[in-house]
């Protein structure tokens, strides 16, 4: 059988790249919306910032699980 293309090396790196896509978009939305909210109502900045960090922490966990999985399933 003839191959058109062949991949050598670890597929884990590609897996992590894909795993980072979703959380990347998610964190972008969270931060963007928080800035929008702060711009509309600057006095709510404190509460919004805390919730932004919470949201980032939860979303980021997905990307980090992707990173760890790359080491675990070698």
């Amino acid at each position, binding site marked *: 059988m003839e191959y058109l293309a062949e991949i050598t090396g670890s597929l884990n790196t590609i897996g992590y790249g894909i795993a980072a896509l979703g959380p990347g978009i998610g964190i972008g939305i969270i931060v963007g919306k928080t800035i929008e909210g702060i711009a509309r109502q600057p006095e709510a900045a404190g509460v919004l910032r*805390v919730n932004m960090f*919470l949201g980032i*922490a939860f979303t980021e966990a997905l990307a*980090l699980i992707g990173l760890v999985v790359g080491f675990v399933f070698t």
Partner: protein
Amino acid sequence: MIATLSWLLPAATSEDGGFTPPTVGEFFPGALFFANTPFAITRINLIMMLMAGLLCLFMVVAFRKPALVPRGIQNLGEMMVDFVYKSIVEEILGANGKRFAGFLVGLFFFIFFFNIAGILPLIHISPSSVIAVPMVMAVAVWVVFNYVGIRKHGLGHYIAMNVFPPGVPKPIYLFITPIEFISTFLLRPITLTIRLLANMMSGHLLLVLFFSATWFFLLESDGLLKIFAVPSFLMGFAFTLFEILVSLLQAYIFALLAAVYIQGSLSEEH
């Protein structure tokens, strides 16, 4: 002095003097003392002791003779404690948060000092990047938030409150109850662990990548390739600054999530 310190550093070059890229094995250094016993002390254990000692020293020096008008290191200490107290304890837990202030402030400082070891010269690895450290702290948080919840609501009510969120049509509980159970009692400590671990680990990997690339381009490559040492070093420098931010942010997020979990198990039905 230098000899003792370099004895603490992992080997940067191989025996034949050539360039060897660092491996993941750096997170699992060999034992220095008490080898082959359960009490084996590795380089990372030594760093843990050093950082814990530094934390104690910092606290003692900062708050030994508190002045009404804080100066110098007391100012720094008060600023950090105040930051945790105002932005985590009061913001999330409100009036009844005072009894958790010690736990959360301790958690914050402990994690911050462990994280910052990742960029301190001659130490260069954070104890938080081996799984034991974040895991123990996550288990501590898990025990605390379950304990206060059970103390306040009783075991049955506490579990029911967590796995049966109100305002859901009855048949949906079939799906929601297992999900809520897993996410509250299993995934919370696991994500706390992985978040801190992976952040510090990836930070360390990034720094190693850029600085070993600098080393490689500067000393091992020839001709025009040497130029690449400059951007590589600059990126490494930038990420060192970024790591300071990440250490602080991860300590903040860990304490913040601990406060949110405690608040969740203290609050009435929501």
